[in-house]
């Protein structure tokens, strides 16, 4: 083998998708989605810095059905990345590596991020007090 032909990771197509690998790739995907969200945050703040007209235009775009759909996806991505990130920090401390706990914490991440996303949106639109 040539020195510069060292094996490069990862060869995803070789493996059958499993709960652990699907959750792992979702962490990366949500991370990339959150970069787009961060760029939208820049646009939003810049619009406010430009003045009332630019800010109103930004708000109209963000409050359209498409804007809300995108923001809903960003909210889910944030909570998923946050909760699964806690899982990663646990692994970094050497905790939670056995298969049972991997599956339990994985399920908690999925259920938790969906629940927190719905809760945030219901709170934002004033529905939490009515529950």
């Amino acid at each position, binding site marked *: 083998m040539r020195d510069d032909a060292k094996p490069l990771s990862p060869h995803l197509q070789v493996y059958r998708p499993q709960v652990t690998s699907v959750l792992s790739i979702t962490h*990366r995907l949500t*991370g*990339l989605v959150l*970069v787009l969200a961060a760029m939208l945050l820049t646009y939003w703040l*810049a619009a406010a*810095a430009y003045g009332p007209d630019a*800010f109103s235009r930004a*708000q109209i775009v963000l*409050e359209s059905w498409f804007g809300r759909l995108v923001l809903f996806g960003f909210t889910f991505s944030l909570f998923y990345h946050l909760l699964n990130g806690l899982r990663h920090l646990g692994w970094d401390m050497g905790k939670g590596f056995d298969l049972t706990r991997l599956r339990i914490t994985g399920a908690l991440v999925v259920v938790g991020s969906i629940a927190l996303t719905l809760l945030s949106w219901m709170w*934002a639109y004033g529905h939490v007090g009515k529950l």
Partner: protein
Amino acid sequence: MVDMARNKRQLRSNLSRVRGLGSTREGVHHWWAQRMSAVALIPLSMWFVYSLITLTGADYQSFHAWASEFGNSVFLVLFIVTLFHHAQLGVTVVIEDYVHSEAIKMAMVLVVKYGTMLFAASSVFAVLKISLAG
């Protein structure tokens, strides 16, 4: 042993290799910075989501009043800087994992590093303009 055979071929001792801190000369700095920014982003992002919830449907005046409040401006700047730093570290790893051409890899990493700096600087300046210049 495999290690010894490898060392003989490389003519470098383990000590010499560890002193160089690996191919990037920074050792675990990238790994550590990603974790530390992640820990900081836990409270910062929760504060940000809470703020967005309270700002739902806000007009310019109420957004302006919120963003120019001292504590909110400080936390916004902290959130922006930490967020783009963490983003830059994470995207760099993804590029390094999946892009196998050295030239394209380096170009993409540069775009990510400069791009996140541009977006972070724009966001911070926007917050300063809102809170200081009215």
